[in-house]
């Protein structure tokens, strides 16, 4: 069945992509990975590209990621920062897990920062919130809800002045 084509098409699912944990800092602009095919020492780097590159690019759409094959004798990753600084990370004979955790440590946003960002995003996205920082100012903007009393006055029974007014008891 040709629905999910290619090797490991799970890498293209939204669920997998959203699970990516590496979110680069703002200063990281370019990531370059050099590795070799048919070299045991490059296997970690190769697998890193195969499994984690889609996740990283998904979470960092503004970071340029390049991979070069069979150009250097040993595999390495280079990170280029906005202020012109460069960082070389040797990944010879290392597994993809080690590589990912190290890159996260040195160039990724820490967990607490990510959590805070997620919270603020959720506050904004939560449709139950109204106000200045949210998508809508007031619930009267939503179709199906009570229209704004400035345009169409509320019925008598819902107005405070009627509810709290002293009325003679009807017999």
């Amino acid at each position, binding site marked *: 069945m040709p629905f999910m084509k290619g090797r490991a098409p799970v890498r293209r699912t939204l669920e997998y992509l959203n699970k990516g944990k590496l979110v680069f800092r703002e200063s990281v602009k370019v990531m370059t990975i050099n590795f070799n095919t048919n070299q045991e020492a490059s296997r970690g780097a190769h697998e890193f590209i195969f499994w984690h590159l889609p996740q990283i690019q998904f979470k960092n759409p503004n970071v340029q990621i390049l991979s070069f094959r069979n150009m250097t004798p040993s595999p390495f990753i280079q990170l280029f920062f906005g202020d012109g600084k460069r960082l070389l990370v040797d990944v010879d004979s290392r597994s993809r897990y080690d590589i990912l955790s190290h890159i996260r440590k040195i*160039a990724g946003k820490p967990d607490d920062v990510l959590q805070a960002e997620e919270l603020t995003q959720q506050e904004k996205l939560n449709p139950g919130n109204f106000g200045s920082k949210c998508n809508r100012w007031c619930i009267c903007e939503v179709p199906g809800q009570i229209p704004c009393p400035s345009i169409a006055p*509320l019925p008598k029974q819902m107005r405070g002045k009627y509810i709290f007014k002293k009325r003679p008891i009807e017999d």
Partner: protein
Amino acid sequence: MSFLSGLTSKAPKAFTGLGVGKTGLIQCVRWRKPRWLPKAPSKIFKVRKPTPIDPEEDAMLKKHFHHYRTVVRAIRSFLLKEDIAKMSKEAITVEEKQQLAQQEWEWVIAENYKWNKTIAVVREARQRIEEAQRKDLQERIVKRDEEERLKVLIEAEQEVLREKEAAATFITPENLDIEIEKVLNTRTDYEFAITENGFRVETETELEKVSQNSKN
């Protein structure tokens, strides 16, 4: 009447009853007299009764309200001032930010250096082994080429010797007549048997043996 009917047909419908629909939900899109419509004749000269205000109660309530609002305003302004002071205390200046960024960068470099160092050990060991293997292979190739070259030389020399030996049996214009005589005087017998492997059988007893073996 036609004017009114025209209104009712175009405008949204009024509430019926107490404003509760059949399903029990309050319907909120309702009729409101537009501002451009004139006042109803029954209401033109209507003067509303002023709301009865008890003067003592009014004075008391006003005082209470004044006190209450003063207190609330005081609390709010105090909290606001506190908040601003807190924010200004926590605010990081530009130099501090740069310093923090610099410290962070130094930490990053240090961590990366440590990581690279541990890997360099493994990498260099691997590269040394590969280098030794490469050298060994090269030497073997050179040796093999040398041996082949020697072989070829030896072969060529032997070939030359063989040819030299064979040169003695060449037929030259001087030998021609003698050789012709020789060939004419020799007789060769083609009546012989060969074994399975193509070897020629020499004597009659050998022939018997061969025939016996084939029968078995």
